[in-house]
């Protein structure tokens, strides 16, 4: 494994059920306010809690009108926060339109458009208004972000279920190293849809209450939606991508390897890439979905790699599991932890599962945080671990 210098993070933002942008997320974390609510998405009548982003009712207009769908409304809303689009515009001035790569993670992209179109079938034809390429296919989110920001370089969608928008960091770093681009816009967007709500229900992985990571009585996920973006550049900055590691479980399509072998492999790879000792990790933002299997396997991985002292928590109790956007959302939360010295507690954990050995944060606190590890694991056994913080 080659050592690559840390990549600087020159702009970053996220929008989720906690609100729009970094301040809204920091405020919610400090105030102990979850974004989850017991409500119904669209026509879905399943009894569950969801992390819905408010204000997605307004269609995209102007040149972006052909791209209008829930996923891209969410993307556009997020791009408008924290001076992000303006930062990219300035970077365009530095690098040129064609030298900033776009790497977007998504699991379901605009699949909700297909769900709506199928309801409107006539004589087994989809409505003329349904635009698979611009509003529904996997790549559409990368193409939309590229179009919205006026970028003309390489662009790609990474779609590895719930690790998608963590893995974009590795792809972007390698692409910059290989010279395919000089800077990279990484991120991810996944929005609520019936496929994931009903799909996770069919696997009996959705809790009827707000998800309870690390709780002895945890019984599944709460689904959320989010968009997040990070601008990666070479050179020094206050915050950086320090390391990334990826692995495959090679075990099961929809269940983690019970001993956390693949998760530990990704975490070790990230530490090696960052040239960091396990003791130098100040906090781990867990994947922590609140399924029985995930939290148990991840705990084993964390304890085997970092020991049982490092403070850890899942922030899924705050945001819900935002699936393909979880990697970027939790990368942004991790950066907030560093920037503002926050250690968020494991929200909704009422009785800590005695089988878990890691140091799960039960009370939020403020403390200097320099380096955070953020874990993301997906269906198909796709694992990614990131280390973010001060270089």
């Amino acid at each position: 494994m080659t050592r690559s210098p840390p990549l600087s993070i020159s702009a970053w933002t996220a929008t989720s059920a906690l609100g729009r942008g970094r301040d809204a997320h920091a405020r919610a974390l400090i105030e102990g306010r979850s974004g989850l609510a017991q409500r119904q998405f669209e026509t879905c009548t399943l009894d569950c809690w969801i992390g819905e982003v408010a204000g997605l009712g307004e269609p995209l207009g102007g040149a972006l009108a052909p791209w209008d769908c829930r996923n891209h409304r969410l993307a556009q809303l997020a791009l408008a926060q924290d001076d992000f689009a303006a930062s990219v515009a300035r970077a365009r001035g530095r690098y040129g339109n064609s030298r900033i790569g776009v790497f977007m993670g998504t699991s379901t992209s605009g699949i909700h458009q297909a769900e709506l179109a199928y309801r409107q079938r006539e004589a087994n034809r989809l409505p003329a208004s349904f635009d698979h390429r611009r509003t529904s296919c996997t790549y559409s989110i990368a193409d939309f972000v590229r179009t919205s920001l006026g970028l003309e370089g390489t662009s790609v969608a990474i779609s590895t279920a719930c690790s998608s928008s963590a893995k974009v960091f590795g792809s972007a770093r390698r692409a910059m190293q290989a010279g395919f681009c000089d800077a990279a816009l990484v991120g991810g967007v996944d929005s609520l849809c019936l496929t994931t709500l009903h799909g996770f229900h069919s696997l009996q992985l959705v809790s009827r209450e707000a998800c309870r990571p690390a709780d002895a009585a945890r019984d599944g996920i709460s689904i959320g939606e989010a968009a997040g973006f990070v601008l990666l550049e070479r050179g020094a900055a206050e915050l950086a991508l320090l390391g990334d590691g990826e692995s495959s479980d090679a075990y099961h399509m929809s269940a983690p390897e019970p001993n956390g072998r693949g998760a530990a492999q990704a975490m070790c790879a990230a530490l090696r890439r960052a040239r960091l000792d396990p003791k130098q990790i100040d906090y781990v933002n867990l994947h922590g979905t609140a399924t029985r299997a995930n939290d148990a396997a991840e705990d084993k991985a964390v304890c085997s790699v970092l020991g049982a002292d490092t403070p850890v928590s899942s922030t899924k109790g705050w945001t819900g599991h935002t699936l393909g956007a979880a990697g970027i959302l939790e990368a942004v939360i991790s950066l907030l932890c560093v920037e503002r010295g926050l250690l968020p507690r494991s929200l909704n954990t009422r009785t800590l599962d005695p089988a878990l050995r890691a140091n799960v944060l039960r009370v939020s606190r403020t403390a200097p945080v320099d380096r955070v590890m953020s874990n993301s694991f997906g269906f198909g056994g796709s694992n990614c671990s990131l280390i973010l913080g001060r270089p």
Partner: protein
Amino acid sequence: MTAYLEAVGLVAPGLPAWEEARTIMAMQHPPAPQSPGCTPPQPQLLPANERRRAPLSVLMALQAAEDAMRRTSIAVADTPAVFASSDAAMAIIHRISSALAEPARIVSPTDFHNSVHNAAAGYWGIAARATQSATTLSAFDGTLAAGLRETFALLADGAPAVLLVLYDVPPPVPLYEKRPIETACGVALMLTGERVPGSVARLTLEEARAESTLTEPWLETLRRGNPAARALPLLSALARRSDQLIGLRAENGALLGIRIQCL
């Protein structure tokens, strides 16, 4: 940037495996297949029950990978993989969207876990006990170029070898009208960073001026009709042992040029 091609796997209508395809594509006038369709392959990598339930996209990806495995000397279990597919399993999206349009809204759990874009990579990992990183990406009609970029970047990052698997299949009606992928195709390329005893070609990224096409009409139809089949000019050059500069259209309209030198 330079990489070395060590093994090829292929499955497409009229090109059932690389060994046959190499002979067919080396001919002056390669004979067109009797039928434009493709019987679903039966990759032995998958256990019988999964072979039965897996979507065609997964079967095509694993068949191509299995074909490459027959020739490679690289330990696939220790090799990172890049899976590249524009649309993966649209048959599953069709089934789930159809079910969700019914009042009962019953989604099959198997359909749901097969609906993820990285289903093929997941099955591959399990079948080949491959525990290294596996990325699954999409860039619409530029998916091949995006897959090659990711593969070259992984090699430049220090991976000794990378398996690139490209696959796409025709969607069912009514999605077909919106995304007319004409035929099923799977391509697997085992690439290494350094020349190894089994290297069959040297691939170098260069500037290209035009997108490569194929002179044989049925092969050109195949190339145009499936994002994975955009790899055929590269494979045709290899079959004919003809050193060429291949131009591939990337997702942003630019050209990715690959010089192939047969070894």
